[in-house]
């Protein structure tokens, strides 16, 4: 059970809704993932296609916890504006805060992120802050009022997996608020390795949407997150530089 700011969620896997080939495949993938938290973005309505379906025709708020993001925002002011628009939609006061600092890597603008977190937290938002894998930034986001800190495994949409297990583990060890790894996992082993670091959950999108079979990958990710969590709780054996036989060395024939 994942708990963020007093809200309980059945699954430690959170999923995005972008880049799917079609809505039907997206819905089947979300169901296969077991996720209850799904992220959505805020964009202008296309007025020339007024019958264009927004995502809410697919995702009903009674079945899924809609987590609005501020993806695409490059300043604190812009992200704050998007967060307030999202809140007015009336589903909840959570926001997945992104303040991007670089178009090529989509790495966060840490100064803007901290500023927006402070402003939004003071305004009653429950801020889940997407950030890099830097411990000091994570600590400052927590101090600024973030209810969860979301360090990346690797850049958004890269599928490069967990680049720095040590930093993720350190962030988890030092923070009191939940740590949800956001972005970068590519396949099930990545997700399992992330969860083995002891973090509270993972948010992913592209790993599902761009899989050859998104529904199949969603199922794999569900198992991987559960397996990684179970392995973390079970506690792994120590690493050794020498072999130790598993069978008895006594009782061998002469």
């Amino acid at each position: 059970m994942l708990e963020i700011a007093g809200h309980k969620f059945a699954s430690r896997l959170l999923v995005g809704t972008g880049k799917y080939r079609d809505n039907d495949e997206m819905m089947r993938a979300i169901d296969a993932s077991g996720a209850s938290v799904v992220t959505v973005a805020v964009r202008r309505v296309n007025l020339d296609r007024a019958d264009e379906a927004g995502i809410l025709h697919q995702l009903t708020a009674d079945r899924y916890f809609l987590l609005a993001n501020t993806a695409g925002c490059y300043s604190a002011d812009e992200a704050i504006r998007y967060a307030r628009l999202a809140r007015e939609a009336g589903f909840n006061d959570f926001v997945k805060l992104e303040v991007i600092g670089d178009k090529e890597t989509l790495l966060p603008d840490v100064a803007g992120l901290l500023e927006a977190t402070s402003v939004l937290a003071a305004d009653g938002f429950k801020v889940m802050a997407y950030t890099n894998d830097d411990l000091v930034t994570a600590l400052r986001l927590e101090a600024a009022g973030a209810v969860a800190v979301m360090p990346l495994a690797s850049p958004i949409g890269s599928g490069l997996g967990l680049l720095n297990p040590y930093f993720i583990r350190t962030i988890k060890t030092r923070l009191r608020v939940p740590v949800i790894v956001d972005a970068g996992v590519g396949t099930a082993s990545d997700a399992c390795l992330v969860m083995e670091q002891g973090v509270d959950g993972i948010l992913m999108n592209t790993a599902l949407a761009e899989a050859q079979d998104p529904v199949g990958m969603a199922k794999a990710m569900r198992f991987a997150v559960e397996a990684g969590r179970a392995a973390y709780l079970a506690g792994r054996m120590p690493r050794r530089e020498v072999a130790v036989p598993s069978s008895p060395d006594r009782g061998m024939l002469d």
Partner: protein
Amino acid sequence: MTLALTINGEPRTITDAGTVEELLSQLHLDPRAVVVEVNRKIIRRAAIAVTPVADGDAVEIVHFVGGG
């Protein structure tokens, strides 16, 4: 009465829309499915029916789309 508005960044001429609710209706948009800003101020759901739109206003109409 004709209003020259900027809606989602584009100039548009609207007739017979005195309020945000009437504007949405003319644009065939469901007020429950969108959020509206007029001149950078978010219009609360409860105020849509009573908030006027005036000549020259900049209106933003947003909704949720797929994203990560």
